[in-house]
């Protein structure tokens, strides 16, 4: 069951990454990026790579998406209006060739190592408790909330400034 879940998470991570780049609305892009980080977190967690899973979620899924939101809000360019067909086609062709070659190389290299059993959710939670990873998670929550709070304050300050300028 967990194996199927991990494959679904893998596919969802790829879909979310593509959606993050292809969405016209930048806020939707950032939200898709958060979703992608959550899916990668799920993949790493089911494979038992607990430490990097949590830190990846904290740093990229938490702090940096907050930063991205602040930057998108500050630049006031909510829509991505830069699109060039020839550039996109060239990029897709280049990426397909490179990814195809890499996947061919990896599949032909004869890697058949089986890493181990997939962790069940109950095992993951007991491991989290035993290794005191909960502390890291709480720190991550504090970091995330602090980032959002600073961003909000910054935005409010800018709005106040703009209002004062209009009044003047």
């Amino acid at each position, binding site marked *: 069951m967990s*194996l199927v879940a*991990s*494959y679904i998470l*893998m596919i969802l*991570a*790829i879909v979310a*990454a*593509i959606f*993050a*780049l292809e969405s016209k609305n*930048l806020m939707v*892009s950032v939200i898709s*990026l958060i979703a*992608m*980080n959550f899916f*990668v977190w799920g*993949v*790493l967690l089911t*494979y*038992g*790579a607990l*430490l*990097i899973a949590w*830190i*990846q979620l904290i740093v*990229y899924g938490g702090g*940096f998406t907050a*930063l*991205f939101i602040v*930057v*998108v809000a*500050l*630049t006031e*360019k909510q829509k*991505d209006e*830069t*699109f*060039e067909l020839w*550039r*996109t086609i*060239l*990029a*897709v062709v*280049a*990426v*397909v060739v*490179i*990814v195809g070659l*890499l*996947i061919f190389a*990896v*599949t032909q290299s004869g*890697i*058949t*190592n*089986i*890493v*181990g*059993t*997939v962790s069940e959710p109950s095992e993951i939670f007991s491991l989290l408790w035993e290794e005191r990873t909960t502390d890291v998670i709480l720190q991550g929550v504090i970091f995330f909330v602090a980032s959002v709070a600073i961003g909000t304050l910054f935005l409010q300050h800018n709005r106040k400034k703009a209002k004062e300028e209009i009044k003047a």
Partner: protein
Amino acid sequence: MIEQLHLLILAIILFGVGLYAILGKRNVIKILMGIEIMTIAVNVAFIALGTELGATPADSIFVKFAQIFPLISLAVGAAVIAVGLAIVINNYRHTKGVDSDEMSTLKR
């Protein structure tokens, strides 16, 4: 049972998606998102290759030591994106745009 190959293929596809953003997009914020996705892909590849193989598949585990390298990569990637976003905001103040083609020079 999980094969290393599947994680490696996930890493390669994510890397490709990030590369597509760098090659095909002109919006600097999306390029930075692509760099973030590429960093995550490299971390997944690190995790996939950092396994200690046991006598039986059940004995094989993800080594904690192998998770330290992605940790360093994460920290460096975080710094790169922070600097990148700062440059985006600085550039926006001058050009009122986030188009990479308009960023021919950083000096104003």
